[in-house]
């Protein structure tokens, strides 16, 4: 069912690269620390392998999930280990286990999603709306399987693009996942000029 050419994967990776780049700039400004990004990794794999690669089904994670889009949609998810989430909040002198800590994570998710939405809009000419963020702490398996079941019906070839973004020296890094919804991916690729 879902098969992608190298060119298409590259185009989506470029969205992630530019999106994470913009987000890193915005977050550096917001948090007063320099955010670095890794080169995004793109995979088409089955859902269980994706979970294993990201840390295993049982690992506890905090995740901020945001849906962007209208006609064409994608999910953006920032994932932190509990320690990373705590360290990120500490950059602002805030305890992660408070309402304020929670809203820091939400805001980080918002910044990410807005950066991706503007990059996607610029590259595709489609306008992308940013939905409110959901913050959850749960098992990686629950988080990922729910994410994939919502975006794709084909679990044996899941398209996943991830990068790391964060402040290295503070161990305040997060995984950023960019997961386009299956049912809009063809249109998105077309608008990106790689259909």
């Amino acid at each position: 069912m879902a098969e992608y050419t190298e060119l298409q994967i590259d185009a989506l990776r470029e969205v992630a690269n530019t999106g994470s780049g913009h987000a890193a700039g915005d977050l550096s400004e917001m948090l007063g620390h320099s955010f670095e990004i890794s080169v995004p990794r793109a995979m088409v794999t089955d859902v269980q392998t994706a979970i294993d690669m990201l840390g295993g089904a049982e690992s506890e994670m905090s995740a901020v999930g945001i849906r962007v889009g209208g006609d064409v949609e994608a999910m953006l998810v920032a994932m932190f280990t509990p320690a990373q989430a705590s360290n990120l909040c500490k950059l602002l002198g805030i305890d992660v286990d408070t309402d304020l800590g929670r809203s820091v994570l939400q805001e980080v998710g918002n910044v990410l999603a807005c950066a991706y939405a503007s990059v996607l809009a610029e590259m595709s000419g489609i306008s992308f709306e940013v939905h409110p963020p959901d913050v959850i702490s749960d098992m990686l398996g629950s988080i990922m399987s729910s994410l994939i079941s919502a975006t794709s019906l084909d679990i044996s070839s899941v398209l996943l693009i991830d990068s790391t973004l964060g402040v290295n020296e503070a161990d305040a890094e997060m995984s950023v996942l960019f997961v386009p919804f299956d049912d809009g991916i063809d249109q998105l690729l077309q608008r990106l000029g790689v259909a």
Partner: protein
Amino acid sequence: MSDRPTADVAVRIGELHAIRPGDRGALVAVGLGSCVGVAVIDQRSGASALAHVFLPELPEGGGRDGAGEGTYADRAIPALVRAVRDASDSGRDCRLVAVVAGGAKMFGARPGNDVGERNVAAVRRALATAGVRIATEDVGGGHGRTMRVDVDDEVRVAVRVVGSEPQELWCARPTQAAGGRLAA
């Protein structure tokens, strides 16, 4: 499935496994979010099977060879019933009940398209079609679950959410379990 497990058996997404009294391991489905764990248990022999259901049904035009037999609710339930019958001693009438857990609403759910809810509905429907009563269920909510089926002198089904202790959902002693452990 004739290999007798000696350690816990991970029932990964889309998988389905069975155990019977005398097997030392438990069946464990880790990280059920919108996914649904369905245990079908033969109350006579204690043989049990657990599926990690991912989606309600096979998507239109999406016949997939790679997907495990536990992937889609509509196919997983008949497969569970078969697996439990196979794991029970032959010639014995099975008395099947089901325990269902999962189907949380986590992120990614779109209005009118909540996969967790649809999974639970599809599982209930398929169990009704197969004539298997649901003994108990722990579904919905916003948290992921890990589901564990232990088959020993008793069959025990427990569920755990992150940061809490396991909760026992169901427990019963098989009515014809004698000899199961010794025979192993």
